[in-house]
């Protein structure tokens, strides 16, 4: 994989995540918004080598953790490194297991795997936050605005929204494959 291309794509995805994503969240649906970084996670998991995909997804998760602060009641914000890093790696491992069974360049495959991957990521992220919410801290850190179940449902909505967006954006990413320099020792005719 060409890491400069990865870094540029990461920069764009993070900027879209923090700038554009929240504006695309319809108030009528509880403010669910798509995740551009998750699309990149799925793309890398589908086409990069195993080692490159894991490291790249881990790095994306760390950067996402540094972009999503948690608020402390009556105090400032804190950045917790780990939830998204672990979640993205878990999602990557899941996709790595499934990618040999699917037609990777099909946009519907991309969309379906995006939905599945985001669900996996959400379980890990919310799970870590739930564990942390048990800590006897003062001031208490607020990890989500509602309950854990409500947060999971919110993220299911985000997964669905991102899966819909994965159709056009997945198509674009697949068209950009030559730029990435992915090495695949097994060239499948179905590509």
């Amino acid at each position, binding site marked *: 994989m060409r890491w400069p291309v990865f870094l540029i794509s990461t920069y764009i995805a993070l900027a879209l995540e923090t*700038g554009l*994503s*929240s504006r695309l969240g319809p*108030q009528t649906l509880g*403010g669910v918004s798509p995740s551009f970084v998750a699309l990149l996670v799925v793309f890398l998991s589908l086409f990069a080598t195993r*080692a490159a995909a894991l490291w790249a997804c881990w790095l994306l998760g760390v950067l996402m953790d540094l*972009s*999503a602060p948690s608020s402390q*009641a009556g105090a400032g914000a804190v950045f917790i490194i780990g939830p998204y890093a672990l979640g993205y790696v878990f999602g990557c491992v899941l996709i790595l297991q499934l990618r040999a069974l699917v037609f990777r360049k099909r946009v519907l495959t991309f969309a379906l795997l995006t939905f599945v991957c985001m669900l996996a990521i959400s379980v890990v992220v919310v799970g870590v936050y739930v564990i942390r919410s048990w800590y006897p801290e003062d001031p208490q850190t607020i990890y989500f605005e509602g309950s854990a179940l409500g947060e999971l449902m919110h993220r299911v909505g985000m997964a669905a929204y991102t899966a819909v967006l994965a159709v056009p954006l997945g198509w674009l990413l697949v068209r950009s494959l030559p730029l990435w320099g992915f090495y695949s020792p097994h060239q499948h005719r179905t590509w």
Partner: protein
Amino acid sequence: MERMGVFRSFARSQIAFPVALAVTLVLALLPTSWLGWTSAPAELLGFIVQPLSAIGDTAGTWIRRGTLSRTVPEETPEASRWREEAQRFQQLYRAEQLRVQELEEQLEQLQLIPIEQLNVQVNRFHARVVASHPTSPGGTVTLRGGERVGVTPGAIAVYGGVHLLGRVIEVSAFSCRLRPITSRATRAIRAVVLPADQPGGSMSDAPAISLQPRGDGAFIADAETIWALAEGDIVCLADPAWPQSAQGMLIGLVESLKVKDSEPLRNEIVIRPRHLLSNLNSVVLIVEQESDTGRVASGSDPEGGGS
């Protein structure tokens, strides 16, 4: 060079990723008090990403077709200006009423207040939203404008001059982080309820309530049924934990009332702000200046206890 070679060998070894994953797991479970160091790399990352995220924010706002909440009907610019000016004077009047009430209480205790402390000098800054929380619609937002332009922690953010949006919790050199008033991390807020047809009514006679963020952009509060509150009533800030310049500002409107099953003489009311930070791409920050005596003119630490 030799160290780089050792590092590269380690990075390519099979043990590197499991080690990284183990370290990440430990970091994920560390107590929050041990994670203060993460704000530095987060700030650096935000500084790098902000130029492009600001463009994305602008594009997103254009896609959403405007910066006003859908509850605000279409009106001409002049009508909008007059409406904002009228609301502004109403807010000033309410703030003055609260100040008079405070003075009367202090005079009763035979305390003298220096006249200088009654005049609150403020600076106003127009601040653009450059980044939002990626997953939480009620999460903190990053605004362009920091210490270099005079923003300080505790500054309030308003829209239309009177609609209270939130409070600055962290300030860096070029940006600041704003917590929405509707965030669950915001402590209980004291407010008063004014009739919808009397927005300039007496603050001292108005029913006082305590607002709790519900986590979905609205507040809940308890109210006595005898107060005869109605949908559409105006809820204004009356909390000494907030700066003087914020007193009397609009928090929202009463959206619904429901008699509590466990307490039939009390209603559970839902208050919803007219303007949400998530719908806006710019706000006005109000920073109170220190008085000549060297003390902050009013207001306590950000998010100080409101009870």
